[in-house]
């Protein structure tokens, strides 16, 4: 693996404010190639905002985001996807009205799209064939072969998440951003999704995930980054973070803070 080279993802002094609210305050961290990184923190800590900044859905207020040493901040999402950063969504975002296979084919856009005239003249057959093959490979990878003709809306939650992951994989990411991939899952589905995530890493893709399911985070991640009130609170291996007094306080304190906020 790349040891001496630049980290795959580097976030430097990232700031983002919404009006008077400071969502991210000088956040800096690095993710090495091949890592699974967990991003945790109480609700409202800025995890999702950070994700949206990295994936280009928000424009950072200040600071820089570098992918393998190249700045990517400020570009639109589709360009960032083209550079190899692909995100998934918190709510299971799929084409509910399309079949599993068609959903996967949709994910192939970056590598199978062709121009207007090729499409009109039917010169895109070869690309469509490549698209079908790529989709078929991912179909096996995420274990949805038997369900390929089913509509996405008919799938159970675990399979829907696997499908969403498959769509993201078809954009051939170097860095995959998973937004709460385990939310709402039962233990069996969680275990399956964890195994799938490890498989993705083994295929050479670096993963950053936002997650509230601590069991999954602790079992899966090499390193964990903790955010609180938009600031970097702690960073380290799952064990060290779990024992960090600042982290413990943030989680307990935020529970109190949460009720305060809810009451006003």
């Amino acid at each position, binding site marked *: 693996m790349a040891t001496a080279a630049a980290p795959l993802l580097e976030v430097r002094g990232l700031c983002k404010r919404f009006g008077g609210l400071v969502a991210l305050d000088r956040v800096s961290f690095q993710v090495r190639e091949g890592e699974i990184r967990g991003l945790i923190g109480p609700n409202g800590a800025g995890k999702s905002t950070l994700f949206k900044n990295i*994936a280009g*859905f928000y424009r950072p207020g200040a600071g820089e985001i570098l992918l393998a040493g190249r700045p990517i901040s400020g570009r*639109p*999402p*589709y*360009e960032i*996807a*083209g550079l190899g950063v*692909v*995100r*998934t*969504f918190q709510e299971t*975002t*799929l*084409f509910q*009205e*399309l079949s599993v296979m*068609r959903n996967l*084919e*949709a*994910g192939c*856009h*970056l590598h*199978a*799209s*062709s121009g*207007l005239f090729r*499409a*009109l003249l*039917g010169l*895109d057959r070869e*690309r*469509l064939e490549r*698209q079908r093959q790529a989709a078929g490979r991912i179909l096996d990878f995420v274990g949805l072969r038997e369900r390929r*003709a089913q509509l996405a809306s008919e799938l159970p939650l675990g399979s829907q998440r696997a499908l969403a992951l498959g*769509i*993201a994989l*078809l*954009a051939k990411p170097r860095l995959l951003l998973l937004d709460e991939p385990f939310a709402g899952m039962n233990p069996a589905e969680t275990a399956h999704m964890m195994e799938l995530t490890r498989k993705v890493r083994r295929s050479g893709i670096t993963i950053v995930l936002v997650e509230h399911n601590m069991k999954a985070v602790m079992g899966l991640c090499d390193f964990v980054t903790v955010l609180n009130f938009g600031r970097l609170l702690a960073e380290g291996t799952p064990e060290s973070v779990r024992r960090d007094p600042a982290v413990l306080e943030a989680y307990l304190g935020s529970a109190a803070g949460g009720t305060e906020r809810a009451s006003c």
Partner: protein
Amino acid sequence: MNSASRRHGWWLAAAVLLPALAALPFFLPFHRQDFMIFLLLDVMLVVSYRLVTLSGEWSLIHMVLMGCGGYASALLSKRADLLVWLSIPLAALLTAAVALLLSFPLLRMRGFYFLIGSYAAGEAVRLAWKYFVYPFGGPKGLKLIPPLELQLPFLEQPLSFVEPIPFYLLLLVVTCVSLLLLYRLEHSRIGLTLHMVHWQPSLAEAVGVNSWRYRTLAFACGAFFAGLAGALFVHYLGSINPNQFAIGEMLYILVWVIIGGTRTFAGPVIGVVVLSVLNEIFRQYDEWRPAIYGLILLLSMRFLPDGLESLPGRLRGLWRRRVAAAQG
């Protein structure tokens, strides 16, 4: 799946329908021939409009884009003395270019804002035709627009396409080719990408789709075929004026598409054919026509909210239930 058999069905339908459609005007009186011509033009309009709706936008400028094609071809052939056979495709391309230009301000907006924005832009263009006497002829428009003619070696006189039957046959060919191209486009990778942009814009962007580019593509391609229809129309009629492209005409396109249904390619075609034929049948009850038309709209919205395209499926469901009830 049975997409192959469905494709066979299409080809079979085309093989029966096309010769029938080509022969039809020979058995019709003059005013019915005219009706068929306008029906084909309207088919081109709704099907090109469908491309815009595929990207998730409803526009109110489509009729004006048709007018752009008409004015462009009229001006090119009348004032610039360009051969009509050249001015028509050129006008279609120009219409696409106009749409491309308009897409910079318009496609920054989405949904309702785009709808209103497209209406405003359309009216601006239309009123420009109305107020600039040179070159557009003002409210009276342009007249004496050169017709399409074809010099054939075995005819003394050139074949003139102001006669309904030759024009109808030419239009039938152009319409079929346009429909084929638009059908291909919808079922190509581009069609899938437009579906993505329409239904999950964030997911589309996240996997690398430049949604603005695809919405522009749909808008400009739709404009090309609307412009083509407009350019053909103007050389048949020999005149053009701004009122032909007013918002009232645009509303017809919306009604046809909505009543026909938006899920399938055939939906808008079914809508325009059924409603136009009904409108023609009730021609003799002229004063009752708007009321009858309105009633049909209300009934179909109430009982067929998914459009006329959903009727065969519904009947099949009804039949199956009947059979099940009879057996049970």
